[in-house]
């Protein structure tokens, strides 16, 4: 009983903070807004730790909070499923959220929307917790859309900026395309399992493993496996939220939002909801190798091709954003290889080091007075030592330096893919391997350009760049970048403390967690793997001899060599011979153009989908409603009535002698008929 109250407290504490800060945002002072929301998230974090310990002791929970709706034979409930997967996510979400809350105090202190911002990020924390703690698909969808809403609100936080309000609408609509598939998947689950409760669905799944549905008029050629269709529909939802190709287009644009939420929502938590969902649904996905193939191919494409785009970005946040896309691709690849625990493991390590990198980028942006172009930085390590060191740690973790957290998770993914036999695994192996070099290259390109080399800031022509905080309402004046002669400065403690606190797990969590989480029984049967059909994980654990051995062994392995050469190449290109990248750009201008246009995804969507929808709407409206229905049918019948009226009007002249004349004629006609009747 006590624990159930604690479960409720976890999401409700941030919700309470969000309501106080949101509903009274115009009356309460700033310190109230940030205190109440930080307190709410801190309570949620502490409660999550307690629950985590309790679950480790073996006390899982699956129960209903209230019945949302009943209809026919169906029952929809709001409830919690508290198990090892849930608690892992709860810890990640509440910890990163707490760090971001603290960081925001420093980052947003000049912003007039301070209270509103705190309300949004607490509301996000609530939504995300409802998503991960759900015990059924309905509530999952509720959390799914709710985090989408908060993401929409936060990307468009600076609502006077045209780019921001375009980006937030784009993000919402692209996510809705994913949700379109997601809700069909949920509908298939309900139609064929008769319930949306996870536990009941998973119990019933093996029975339905071989059932088929017909997608077209009961024809043989249209008959497909139920599990394949369901899983692909569900995965389309994950593709929207976790930004997999081709539904990735919203994530780079989401960088229009303030940096703290880029860290919290668009790197650490919300975008990983899709990964979490697929891991949660492992008992379903395991029953369809076709769906898993689809997953691994989509993931591999995302991992490699989004990484390439990271190389040519010059906006510090966009580099990290493309890196996030690429890493989400890695997680998806792991899911496709049936290495769900590895995907969750990478999700966790990534949450820490990517949040760290984003917050560090934000710290740089503050230090540079809202300059985001890395070509105008350089040599910052002298002025911002804490940001420098933590960034270096984050970058090293990201590229998979042995013994750091990212190494353990990423190497496990690569190994798992190497051992997987499902169709598409070969391509995925190549993609994740090549991705290691690409990741190292773009990460250290950014690192060297920002923290090393000559100081390129403080020149007069910097004002053209469109940076953060471009807000009419901001009280301070519009300076972007440093004035000539001005030097960057280290940020206040509320900003750098979260960096330090995030750097600790970025270093250590992989080493600690890999044993139990990936190869031990940490998940205690929550994740289901059909070892007969997908033996990759089983083989992988045969090769594992402890975290230390894994690190030592890797020093001679291909990923390490690739990562090292990526770092060295970027050092050579950007520190030693800056003329080389420029020459390459000229030499391969075709590829460069392709990259700069982001493979033309945006153009395509703009012309075909956005433009097409408007053309279609105009055609239906002008052609259908106005021309045919109103023009021909409605006004046509009105004209017909008018025409009849016009004709009959000739008989109503208003002159008495006309009427008299007509009457006389009538009388004559009648008399004639009467006389002739015989």
């Amino acid at each position, binding site marked *: 009983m006590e624990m159930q109250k604690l479960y409720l407290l976890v999401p409700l504490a941030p919700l309470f903070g969000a309501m106080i800060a949101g509903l009274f945002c115009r009356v309460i002072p700033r310190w109230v807004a940030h205190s109440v929301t930080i307190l709410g998230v801190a309570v949620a974090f502490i409660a999550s730790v307690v629950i985590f310990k309790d679950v480790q002791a073996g006390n899982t929970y699956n129960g209903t909070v209230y019945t949302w709706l009943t209809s026919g034979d169906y029952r929809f409930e709001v409830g919690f499923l508290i198990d090892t997967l849930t608690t892992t996510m709860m810890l990640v979400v509440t910890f990163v959220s707490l760090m971001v809350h603290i960081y925001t105090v420093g980052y947003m202190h000049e912003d007039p929307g301070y209270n509103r911002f705190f309300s949004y990020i607490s509301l996000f924390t609530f939504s995300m917790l409802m998503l991960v703690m759900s015990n059924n698909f309905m509530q999952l969808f509720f959390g799914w859309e709710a985090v989408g809403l908060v993401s929409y609100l936060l990307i468009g936080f600076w609502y006077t900026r045209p780019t921001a309000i375009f980006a937030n*609408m784009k993000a919402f609509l692209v996510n809705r395309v994913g949700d379109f598939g997601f809700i*069909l998947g949920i509908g*298939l689950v309900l139609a064929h399992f008769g319930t949306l409760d996870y536990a009941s669905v998973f119990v019933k799944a093996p029975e339905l493993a071989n059932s088929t549905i017909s997608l077209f008029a009961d024809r043989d050629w249209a008959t497909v496996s139920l599990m394949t269709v369901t899983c692909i529909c569900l995965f389309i939802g994950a593709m929207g939220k976790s930004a997999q190709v081709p539904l990735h287009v919203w994530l780079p644009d989401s960088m229009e939002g303030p940096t703290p939420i880029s860290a919290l929502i668009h790197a650490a938590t919300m975008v990983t909801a899709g990964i979490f969902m697929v891991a949660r649904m492992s008992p379903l996905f395991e029953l369809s190798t076709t769906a898993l193939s689809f997953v691994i191919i989509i993931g591999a494409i995302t991992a490699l091709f989004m990484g390439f785009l990271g190389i040519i970005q010059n906006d510090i946040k966009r580099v990290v954003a493309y890196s996030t896309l690429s890493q989400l691709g890695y997680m998806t690849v792991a899911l496709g290889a049936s290495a769900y625990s590895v995907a969750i493991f990478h999700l966790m390590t990534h949450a820490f080091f990517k949040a760290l990198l984003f917050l560090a980028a934000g710290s740089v942006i503050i230090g540079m007075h809202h300059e985001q172009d890395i070509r105008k930085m350089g040599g910052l390590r002298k002025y911002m030592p804490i940001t420098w060191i933590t960034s270096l740690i984050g970058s090293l973790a990201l590229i998979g330096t042995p013994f750091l957290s990212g190494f353990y998770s990423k190497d496990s993914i690569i190994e798992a893919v190497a051992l997987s036999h499902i169709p598409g695994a070969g391509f995925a192996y190549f993609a994740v391997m090549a991705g290691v070099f690409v990741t190292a290259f773009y990460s250290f390109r950014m690192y060297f350009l920002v923290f090393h080399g000559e100081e390129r800031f403080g020149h007069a022509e910097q004002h053209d760049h469109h940076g953060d905080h471009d807000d009419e309402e901001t009280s301070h004046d519009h300076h972007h970048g440093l004035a000539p002669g001005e030097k960057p400065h280290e940020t206040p403690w509320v900003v750098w403390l979260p960096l330090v606190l995030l750097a600790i797990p970025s270093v250590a969590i992989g080493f600690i967690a890999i044993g139990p989480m990936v190869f031990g029984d940490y998940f205690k049967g929550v994740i289901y793997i059909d070892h007969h059909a997908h033996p990759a994980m089983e083989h992988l654990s045969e090769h594992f001899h402890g975290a230390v051995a894994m690190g030592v062994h890797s020093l001679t392995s291909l990923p390490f060599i690739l990562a090292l050469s990526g770092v060295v190449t970027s050092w050579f290109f950007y520190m030693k011979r800056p003329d080389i990248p420029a020459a390459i750009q000229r030499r391969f201008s075709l590829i460069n153009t392709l990259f700069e246009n982001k493979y033309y995804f945006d153009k395509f969507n703009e012309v075909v989908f956005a433009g097409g929808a408007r053309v279609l709407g105009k055609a*239906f409206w002008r052609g259908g409603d106005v021309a045919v229905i109103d023009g021909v049918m409605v006004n046509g019948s009105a004209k017909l009535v008018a025409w009849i009226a016009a004709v009959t009007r000739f008989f109503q002249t208003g002159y008495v002698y006309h009427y008299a004349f007509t009457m006389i004629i009538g009388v004559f006609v009648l008399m004639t008929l009467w006389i002739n009747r015989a």
Partner: protein
Amino acid sequence: MSTYPLISLAIWTPIIAGFVVLATGSDRNAPLARMLALAGAIAGLIVAIPLWTGFDVAQGTMQFVELKTWIPRFNINYHLGVDGISMLFVVLNSFITIIVVLAGWEVIQQKVAQYNAAFLIMSGLMNGIFTSLDGILFYVFFEASLIPMYLIIGVWGGPNRVYAAFKFFLYTLFGSLLFLLALMYLFIQSGGSFSILEWHKLPIGLGPQIWLFLAFLVAFAVKVPMWPVHTWLPDAHVEAPTGGSIVLAAIALKLGAYGFLRFSLPIAPDASHELSSLVVGLSLIAVVYIGFVALVQADMKKLVAYSSIAHMGFVTLGFFMFSAMGIEGALVQMLSHGFVSGAMFFCIGVMYDRVHSRQIADYGGVVNTMPKFAALFMLFSMANAGLPATSGFVGEFMVILGAVKFNFWVAFAAASSMVVGAAYTLWMYKRVIFGDVANHHVAELTDINNREFLILGVLAICTLWMGLYPQPFTEVMHASVNDLLRHVAISKIQ
């Protein structure tokens, strides 16, 4: 159970209040007329609430039945009753009447008494439609409720109100005549009865059923409105004053949909099955086609009017899937649409009162001057786009999930509204609310006053309540919907 004739009270309280308001006469007594109208509307809700609180959820048949002889010669009775399908609409209607009276509080300065009286009388008449169990009584209320609506559009409407009224008239006349013919046919076939409940039991051959069904379809499709007889609605909305739009969207559109459940399905069950694909097809056209049409509208009211048609497409779609999820989802959608579309039209009215334009292009950056309004408008826009935790989600969710079982591709087409619905709503919101202050009109805007805040706040609470805990709304429907489904499953052909 109360011994009071609760339904009669729900019908006649607002009507009598309407005549009292009318008696206050000219605009010299406008403040008195407003107060009386508000009192009458509140009294109307108070007498309607016991219908809900006293409702027996286990019982699927008619409750609070009143039966008096009206015209004995033709066996016409004053026969009233509510079941789980109709009860909530009486409460919704009585509730919306208060909103409407408040919505016109400061805005309507001419013919105040007549304006408020028209709404009160219409409210009573519409309660009559939802509760009539006698065919002629239904018809009388159905036709009589048009008169106040005509007046509202015709007297307090916009510049092009004559065209709108004419169009409305042409459409409705067409449907009404066929409906009357159907009633006559049923009167003769049943051996001289106008009781709707007896018609439900009347055996009819498939041929006549199909003709009856088509007659009902035309009458109700115009009201809903379904594609292709929908084009009166955008014009009527554009010309109607804010209050008129609220009632039109929140209640009047539900009358047609209600007719399907009270007449078409139970009286002609075989024809309903036979022709279900026709209705499903028209509904999907409404959802998809109208969604795209809404996307390109430049007038906010037209946009929301088209979005109403698309949302009502979900209602008719839900009815003709013949499942509890479908019908209950459709009913929830109708209730939710009452709150959400009412709120959307009110929001547009709030801006129109200040700027005197409904064109999207005349706005931009409203959030800078009206932050409170922008926040509430955001909530209703999201509800209109079907976001979970708002009422707009519940009905769509149920209908889409029900549709997957019915036919995957029907669900596929219906679910496309998740994208298109969000697109037209959020695109409008972006252009109107976000951005820099677009012109001096927007710069001079004042945020919503207490009256407007009260209206939007109450509607916001309703929207969230229904989204977070829809169970109280659906639990009253179960028994009646199950009875209806059992009834529709049995053939009437002998």
